[in-house]
C-alpha cells in the first residue's frame, strides 16, 4: 500500500456502482478489454496519418508515366478533380479519415472505376485460405516437434529437429519458396518427365496450395517448435510432473495432461506476432507463387503508385495485426490465471 500512496487507486474517480465492477476479476477483465480496444483507435489514426503523409510527400504525381507520352495538363486537372486531389491536403486527409470510418477507401487509380473496397474483397479469399491453412498447421506441427525434441533431449531426434528448425528460421520466405519451386516443380518435372510435379504458380483448391502453405507456415512452425522445446524442458523438471510419474501415470497422460498444458502458455503469446507474420508473409508468398491475393495486390499497387490502394491495404493489414494482438492478450488472461491486468 505504501508504494501506491499518493496515487489514486484504480476506479477511485468512478461512481460507486462502477467501482464495484472494477474490484472483481471479471469486471477488471472487461475494463482491460475495453481499454485495449480504445487504445487501437489512436494507433490506427496514426497509422493512417503517417501513411497518408508519406503518400503526399512522394515527389511527382500518380499520373506521371515512366517513359512514353505524358498526359496533357487538362487531363491531369480533370483527374485531380475526379479523385479529389485538387483540395488542400489537410481537407483531403479529414475527408479520407471520415470515409474510412464508413469502410469507404476511395477509388483505385490503376483499375478504372473500381473501388479499393471491391479490390480488397475480391482478393481477400485467396489470402485468407492460405493464411488459415498455414495457421492450422502451425500449432500441431510446431508443438508436436517441440515436445518430441524436449522429451528426447540431447538425442539424435532432438538434434535433427532443432537443426531443421534453426535452418528453417534463418532462411527467408522467398528463398524457401524459390528453392521449393526448383526442387518440386523444375527438377521433379525433369526427373519424372512431367508425370509428377507441383504447380509453381496459380491458385486452386488442390496441389497448388501445398507449396504456398508450407512456405508460409515454415517460420512460425520453427519458432513454435523451439519455444515449445524450451518451455517443455522447464516443465518436465517441475515437482508436479515428478509426482505424476511417481503416481505411475501412463506416459501419454503425463505428457498430455501435465506437461503439454503448462508448456503451451508461452506458445500462446507468440500467436499474435505469428498472425502478423502470416499477413506480411502473404506479400512474399503471393508474389513467388503468383496468387492474386491481398499481398500481391499490395505489391502491384506499390509498383503503379496506386495510393488509395496502398493506403487501404496498409490500414487493413494494421487492423488485422492489432486485432490479433488484442485477441491473444485477452486469451492469455484466461489461460494463465497468474497474469495481472494492467
Amino acid at each position, binding site marked *: 500500500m505504501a508504494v501506491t500512496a499518493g496515487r489514486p487507486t484504480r476506479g477511485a474517480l468512478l461512481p460507486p456502482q462502477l467501482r464495484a465492477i472494477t474490484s472483481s476479476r471479471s469486471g477488471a477483465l472487461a475494463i482491460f478489454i475495453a481499454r485495449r480496444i480504445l487504445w487501437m483507435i489512436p494507433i490506427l489514426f496514426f497509422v493512417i496519418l503517417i501513411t497518408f503523409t*508519406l503518400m503526399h510527400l*512522394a515527389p511527382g504525381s500518380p499520373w506521371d508515366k515512366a517513359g512514353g507520352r505524358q498526359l496533357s495538363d487538362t487531363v491531369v486537372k480533370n483527374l485531380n478533380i475526379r479523385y479529389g486531389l485538387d483540395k488542400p491536403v489537410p481537407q483531403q486527409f479529414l475527408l479520407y479519415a471520415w470515409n474510412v470510418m464508413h469502410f469507404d477507401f476511395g477509388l483505385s487509380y490503376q483499375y478504372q472505376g473500381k473501388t479499393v473496397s471491391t479490390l480488397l474483397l475480391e482478393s481477400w479469399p485467396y489470402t485468407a485460405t492460405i493464411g488459415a491453412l498455414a495457421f492450422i498447421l502451425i500449432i500441431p506441427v510446431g508443438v508436436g516437434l517441440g515436445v518430441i525434441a524436449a522429451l528426447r533431449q540431447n538425442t539424435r531426434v532432438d538434434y535433427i529437429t532443432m537443426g531443421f528448425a534453426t535452418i528453417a528460421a534463418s*532462411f527467408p520466405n522467398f528463398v524457401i519458396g524459390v528453392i521449393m519451386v526448383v526442387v518440386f516443380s523444375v527438377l521433379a518435372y525433369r526427373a519424372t518427365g512431367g508425370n509428377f510435379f507441383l504447380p509453381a504458380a496459380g491458385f486452386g483448391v488442390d496441389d497448388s496450395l501445398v507449396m504456398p502453405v508450407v512456405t508460409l507456415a515454415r517460420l512460425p512452425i520453427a519458432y513454435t517448435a523451439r519455444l515449445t522445446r524450451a518451455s517443455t524442458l522447464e516443465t518436465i523438471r517441475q515437482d508436479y510432473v515428478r509426482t505424476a510419474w511417481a503416481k505411475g501415470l501412463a506416459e501419454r497422460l503425463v505428457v498430455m495432461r501435465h506437461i503439454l498444458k503448462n508448456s503451451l502458455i508461452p506458445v500462446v503469446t507468440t500467436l499474435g506476432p505469428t498472425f502478423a507474420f502470416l499477413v*506480411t508473409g502473404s506479400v512474399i508468398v503471393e508474389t513467388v507463387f503468383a496468387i492474386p491475393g491481398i499481398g500481391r495486390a499490395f505489391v502491384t499497387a*506499390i509498383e503503379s503508385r496506386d495510393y488509395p490502394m496502398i493506403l487501404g491495404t496498409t490500414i487493413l493489414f494494421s487492423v488485422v495485426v492489432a486485432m490479433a494482438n488484442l485477441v491473444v492478450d485477452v486469451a492469455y488472461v484466461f489461460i494463465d490465471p497468474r497474469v495481472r491486468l494492467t
Partner: protein
Amino acid sequence: MAIPATTVDQLIDWEVPEQQIGLWTDAVQRFRRNRIAVLGAVLIAVLVVIALTCPLLVQLHVLKDPIHQNVDFIESGPGQNGFLIGSDELGRDTLARLLFGSRVSLAVGIFVQAIILPIGLAIGLASGYFGGRIDNLLMRFTDVWYAFPDLLFGLVVVSVFGPSLLTIFGAISLVNWVGLARLVRGQVLAIKEKEYIEAARSSGSTPLKLILKHLLPNSLGPIIVTLTFGIPNAIFLEAVLSFLGVGIQPPTPTWGQMVFDGYEAIYANPTSVVFPALAIGFTLLAFTFVGDGLRDALDPRMRR
C-alpha cells in the same frame, strides 16, 4: 539472488587472482568453445574477404565483369560457354554477380546498425533514465511504430522516395530502431535500481557520468546481441525489397534482384536462381549462429 555484489566478495576474489576472469575474457573463451558460432564467424569472415577482394579479382581477370553483357550467351547452364555456374538473361556471369552481391548485403547489414545504434540508444536511454512523462510519450510513439508490419512500411517508404541506396538504408533503419530502443529502455530500467547505481549517485555522479560509466557498459552485452541479430534482419529486408522489384536498382548486382530476375526463366535456367537464394540463406544462417553464440557467451547467468 538479492545478495548484492558487496565489496567483501570482491576482496576475496582479489586475493585469488588465478580464478578471476573478466566477463569479456570469459565471453571470448565461451564463444570460441561454441563450434557452431565459430563456424558462423568463419563464414562471415570469408564473405567479408570476398566482398573486399572481388573488384581486384576482376582487374586480375580471374573473375568476369559482373555488369558486362554477352547477348550471344544468355541463360547458359553451369560450365557452358566458359561460365562456371552459368549466365543470366543478359548473358552476365552468375558467379561474378554472386560474389559482388555480397557487397550490397554486408553494406546494408552493417550500415543499418550504424544508423539505428545512436537513435535506439538516445531514445532508450532517455525513456528509461528519465521515466515519467518522457517515457510515456516515447513508448506510446514506439507503440505506434510497432503497429506497422515492418515489411509493408519499408515497401511504402521505398515506393514513395524511390529505390536509391540511401532510401533503402533509411527505410530499413526506420523499421528497425524500435526494437533496440525498447531493449535499451528495459536494460536501463533494470540496472537503475541496482545498488551500485545508488552508490554512484550518492557519491555525486552527474547523470551524464552515470549513463556513460555505469548504465551503458552494463547493458552493452544485450545491445551487442541485438545489433548482431539486426544484421541478418536488415540483409533480409533488402533482399525482399529487391525480390519484389523495388530494391537497389540495376546494374548493381544484389542477391535479391538476381532471384527476382532469374525467377522468370526458372524452368530454363534454375542455377541463376538457386545460387543467390542459397547465398542469402547461408549468410543469414551464419549471422544467426554468431548471434546465438554471442547471446550465450554474454549471458552472465551461464558463466561457470
